[in-house]
Every structure is written in C-alpha cells, then in structure tokens.
C-alpha cells in the first residue's frame, strides 16, 4: 500500500495541473487576504487588525486552499478516466479498491500541502499588515498553530472527499464544476437559509477547523451571517473523514467496479 501511495504521489508530482492548482490556491488566497487586510478597520469593512476578529478575517482567505485542494482531489481520480490511463493503472493493480484507497491517501497528503501553503500565505499577509500598522498580534501563538493544524487537516480531508467524488462522477469537468458549485453556491444558500445545519456542511466544517466562523467562509449574502457555533475540532474532523470514507466506499462498490474499455 505504501508503494501504491508513493506511485500516486509521483503521478501528482509529474503533472503540471497539480502545480497550477497549487499556484492558483496560493494566488487567490494572497489576493483575498490583501483585500481583507486593506479593508480591515475601515467603515463597513472587517474589524481592525489590532483585534483577533480582524486578523482572523484575513486568515480566512485560506479557504481558497480548501476549494482548490478539493478540485485537486477530484482530478486525481477522474483524470484516470479523462485520459484513459485507468487501463494501465488497473493492469498494474487489479484490486481497484486498493488503487482508490491509495489515491485518497495521496490526495490527503497533497491536500495538506495546499493547506500549509494557503495558511502560510494568508497568515503572512495578515502578520505583514499587523506589523506595518504597528499593532500587536491579537491572536496567541498557540491558537495560530492550532488554526494551522486545522487548516491542514481540513484541506487534507476535503481533498480525500474530492477523490471519492471524482471516482463517483468519473467526468473531470462535471466533478470540478460540482466542487465550485457546492462550495461557493450551494453551501452558501443552504447555510444562509438553514443556519442550524450550517456547521455540518462539509466545506463550512472544514473552514471552521482553522478558526473561521461558520458564516466566514460563505459567499454572497450569507457571508458573515451570524450562525450557530462551529462543531468542536474533533467532531468536524470526524465528519469530514466519515464523508471521505462514505464517498470512497460507495464509489468502490459502484463506478469503480465497472468495466474499463
């Protein structure tokens, strides 16, 4: 199994798409972090950077790493069908369940890299603005480390969910569009209409792992809408891990077992 995970990681490292998605995640995170930081403390903008809430809003820009790590996860599994490489993969490893497991684990490892990169960019922007304005850092070191771990765990688990989703839909385009539609539109609408279920929505749950408020990761009118308190760290992580397992098991029982021609 270790070798199969290594194979999947080598596949990721030898395609440009992986680096493109990582660069996109870092760029979007940086751009949104700079916008949030520049607006902080102004009328109608986020809270001042001298406060924990203001700095937290800047760190929240790391949600782009969550979205793009999920997309990366989808491409790991659906890409095999898009490019017809599933044939070679299954010839090398006829036990398809093992291939899917290796992909989910490799996706989680790569997702963690996305999370780390996104957090470093968002926190770097936040701390630069804090330093430039001569404020003290309003969030303690221990909390910042906890947020970092949460962000890495969140991106890793969302990427693994992406692998399961990509295996189920098999169409790369549909899978990628589905991820953007779910995270940006559907969760924002569902979370805005039914605030009580908000902490249980996967992308929102992943974002709360790194200290984002349940409304902080929403887009459109639902953004910043006060909602119930987020799930405890372990519960949110367990929810995401459970979803990743469910998607992968369902895929293994259905689409993955289909004929490859």
């Amino acid at each position: 199994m270790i070798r199969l995970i290594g194979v999947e990681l080598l596949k990721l490292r030898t395609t440009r798409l992986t680096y493109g998605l990582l660069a996109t995640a870092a760029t979007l995170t940086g751009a949104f972090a700079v916008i949030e930081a520049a607006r902080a403390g102004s009328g109608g903008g986020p809270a001042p950077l001298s406060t924990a809430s203001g700095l937290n809003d800047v760190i929240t820009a790391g949600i782009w790493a969550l979205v793009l790590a999920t997309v990366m996860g989808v491409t790991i599994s659906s890409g095999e069908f898009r490019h017809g490489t599933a044939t070679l993969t299954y010839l090398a490893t006829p036990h398809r369940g093992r291939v899917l497991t290796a992909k989910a684990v490799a996706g989680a490892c790569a997702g963690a890299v996305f999370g780390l990169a996104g957090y470093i960019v968002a926190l770097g922007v936040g701390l630069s603005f804090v330093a430039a304005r001569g404020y003290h850092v309003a969030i303690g070191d221990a909390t910042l480390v906890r947020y970092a771990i949460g962000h890495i765990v969140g991106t890793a688990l969302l990427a693994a969910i992406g692998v399961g989703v990509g295996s189920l839909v098999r169409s790369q385009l549909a899978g990628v569009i589905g991820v953007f539609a779910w995270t940006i539109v559907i969760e924002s609408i569902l979370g805005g209409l039914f605030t009580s279920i908000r902490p249980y929505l996967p992308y929102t749950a992943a974002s709360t792992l790194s200290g984002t408020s349940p409304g902080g990761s929403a887009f459109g009118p639902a953004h910043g809408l006060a909602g119930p308190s987020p799930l405890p760290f372990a519960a949110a992580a367990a929810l995401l891990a459970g979803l990743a397992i469910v998607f992968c098991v369902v895929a293994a029982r259905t689409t993955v077992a289909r004929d490859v021609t």
Partner: protein
Amino acid sequence: MLLGLVRPDAGTATINGRPYRDTEEPLHKVGAVLEASSFHPGRTARNHLRVQAMVGQADPSRIDDVLDLVELTGAADRRIGGFSLGMRQRLGLATALLTDPELLILDEPANGLDPEGVRWLRDLLRGLAADGATVLVSSHMLAEVAQTVDAVVILDHGRLITQSSLAELTAGGTVGLEEAFLGLTRDSRQEVPR
C-alpha cells in the same frame, strides 16, 4: 476479459491457470499494449515510465534500456501529448517491456507505425519470442500477421472458429492467411444463420 478489465457475462479467463486479478506482481507476468492513447498527455515519456517502474517494481535503470529499445531516447523528456500515434505505440511497448514480462498481449501493435516501424516491430516480436517470451497479438492486418506468427486463433463474432499453427492453416504457405480466414469465417456463418 483476460486482463480483468471487463467482466464476462459467463465463463472465466485465466493466465497460467489463475485469473489476472489473483496474479501476484502481474506486470512481471503479463505486459499489455491495448490502447495507443492511454497516457497522461501532460507527463513526459520518462516520467510516465518512472511511474510504471515504481508500480511494477522494475529497476529504474530499465527506463533508459526500454527507451533505447523502442528508439524514443531522444523524445524521453517531451510531453506525451505531442507524440504521434507511432510514438505512442512505441511508448506502449516500452511500458509493457519495462517489467520484463513472460507474456506480451498486444492489440493492433502495428497501428500508426511507418513501414520501417512495422519491420522493426516484427523483428522485435520475433526476437522476444526467440528469447522465450510468449507474444499474443490481436490484429485485423492478416498479411502482416502472417509474416510474424507461429500459431493462429481465429475469432469471428465472439466465437472461436479455429486454432492451429500458421503452417497448417495456410497449407504450408500455398494458401494466404487472408483467404484461409475468409473461407473459414464464411463457412461458419453459413452453419449458424445470424
């Protein structure tokens, strides 16, 4: 079906007595070239072979050997998306040969090859067979097949029509393989009206 990619409605297919799925280290037993297009277009030929060497536990030094064997050394660091059909066929063969399998299964291996390439392929396959490998080629190009193979299996509409040595089927070379094929399949279709 033989390689476990498609589930048969009925029956079983085994290689050396075992279903492909239960074969340990399958790439060391069987090398297959099925579709010319099944490579990631963004990966270079060398990186593709690195992945295959890792999954098949082949010595990485074999990568240069097989690239040389299929005459792709010069294109090793180019992305496969820019390869011609013939180059993909060669890379497919390199992929299959990387793990030094005992059995090669090739589907229309001469597809996309130029006349020089066809000659090269014929010599390669004969050389592999002479070295003790078993090579199973499925093809519609009977004139080409007749120049390469020892034994022939004729399938028509999913049914086995005949299985014999090439010499027997062509009456020691007096009948062409194409004529023999057309005659046999015509007879079998008359027997079983469709």
